[in-house]
């Protein structure tokens, strides 16, 4: 039988991908420090501002979305 295409399920690949991600993240932080962007509002040009915005914004949105879900969630056949 033909072997299944399971590239992304191999532990080695997953480990390598995690490594690349962490390395790229750190590299980008360094790059960001040396090449700051032109600021619109002063604080948006701080180093690592965007990374922090991404992390905090993500958690914030998920909390808001969970709050909305708590209110609006109904059973799949609610509308019949």
């Amino acid at each position, binding site marked *: 039988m033909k072997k*299944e*295409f*399971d590239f*992304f*399920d191999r532990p080695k690949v997953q480990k390598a991908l995690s490594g690349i*991600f962490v390395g*790229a*993240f750190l590299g*980008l*932080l360094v*790059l*960001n420090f040396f*090449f*700051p*962007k*032109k600021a*619109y*509002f002063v604080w*948006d040009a701080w180093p*690592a*501002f*965007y*990374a*922090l*915005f*991404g*992390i905090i*914004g*993500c*958690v*914030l*949105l*998920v909390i*808001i*979305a*969970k709050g*909305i*879900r708590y*209110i*609006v*969630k*109904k*059973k*799949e056949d*609610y*509308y019949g």
Partner: protein
Amino acid sequence: MDNVFPPALILIIGALLIPFLKGHIKSAYMILLPIVAFLAILNIPPGNYQMFSFLGQDMSLRFDSLSLVFAYVFVIIACIANIYALHVKGDRERVAACIYPGAALGAVFAGDLITLFIFWEMMTFAALFIIWSNKTAGARAAGMRYLLMHLFGGLCLLTGIIMTVHNTGTATFGYIGLDAGLASWLILIGFAVNAVVLPFHAWLPDAYPEASITGAIFLTAFTTKTAVYVLARTFPGAEVLMFAGVAMALFGVCYAIIENNIRRLLSYHIVSQVGFMVAAVGVGVPLAINGLAAHAFAHVLYKGLLFMAIGAVLYRVGTAKASELGGLYRTMPLTALFCIIGAASISGIPFLSGFVSKSMTLAAAGQEGIMFVWLLLTLASVGTLLSVGFKVPYFTFFAKDSGKRPPEAPLNMLIAMGLAAFLCVFIGIYPAALYNILPYGAIFAPYTIASVTIKFLFAAGVLLAFIFLLRTNFYPAKLLAVNLDVDWFYRKLGLGFLKLLGVPLAWLNNLGSRFLLEIMPKVLIWFGKNPSAMLKVAYLTVRSPFSSSPGKFQKEAQDIKAVYPNYVFQPWSIGFTMAFITIFLVLYLIIYYTL
């Protein structure tokens, strides 16, 4: 100026031929028709063209840079979607899917409000038939609700247009602004229904996921983008749109995060993306108008691509619910790749189309110093990364293996997705191709080391948080559930209201019909059998309480009732009767001659 043949009519009239064609000729025809329209558009020099007069108004076409950007992408996606839909056999959807882009072209090329309105309504009905051609009960009901919402919007628009023509004497389709009072607000509401502005948005996530997989590609492209176009024409710089757009952008992503049905998720995300464009209309500066045109162009392509990829999954697996998918990359690697390209484009990853288009709107808000727009739209971008950028490809093609091993998508679908993906990449690495057709030219340089760095860093930050939330099980779980939206008001509350009205009204109706049609005729017939006897009974009944011996009266009344209707009131002799008649005759004659 010379007359031109409206490109819209190439598609609309061309659509009528479709049912007469068969097999490969039909397939080729479907793909060639948008290309012919495209060539026709390229050959028309920019300018205004007066066609003919109608109701004392000049019907005209307008070809300028703003309308052309939208027209180009409309014919491109129509061509790609027709390739994707090659396997569809039914003529109904094919014809509707050909008229629909034609009507959209007609709307963006309209030079006056009346032409606009005609094509506007044509779009509504073409879209309705696309929804209905997926012959499920859900599609039928959702189509009906779609129609109701759009009729409401269309009537607001029509009323606004009539008032405008009445007030100003012309139906010119240009800047309207909000100073003209009620007329301009009605037009704005009419546009807002199609632009999914809250709270008129619910028809979109309600109806689009109910369409067939091919129909959905067409639906995502035209209605909302045409609405953005007309808003950019008529209400640039209207502050209210800034707030509306930001609200839509955030609302859309929040619902996308919790939605389980991926096609509905993508539909909610359209609300968010169109929110970006509506906010750009509100900002209104040249960079923002450029931004919304570019964004609309890019959006049609990558949102179409995402709908195609998920459509292929639905076609092969039979479900588009995140809770039933996972691990599909093993057997659908190309679809997975195209989905990732679409998801990365929509997230604004550098070197893809979303980056060069979306950053323009943000830059416009930033340069104008409108902090809340910039901050909240950036937050909405986080939501885009989270809900579509990572969630859609991850939950569908990776994540927990669902054990499903569907075959790869059919060839025509792969070609269509490949074309859309190619355009996403092409615009990303060669943005000049897009910038040169923008209304205000190439006034924006997207690529600097700093801008690319921060965008990647931004995405990496969101990815880090996404992984963290998944690992800690804090990310909203995949649940089989529906999430209530504004459509609850007309799907549940409206029904309840009808019932509430129905119960007392039905009771009243029953009562009325019983009294008028049953009881009253019976009584009259009964009374008519012997009126004098009945009058005597009535007299006796009324008289009895005032008499010293009421028993006597009551007894007599009962005796009469017992023999009714054969009771004889008073046996009179013939002579007496004759005398009576004579007296009445004399009285009558006296009255007749004296008065």
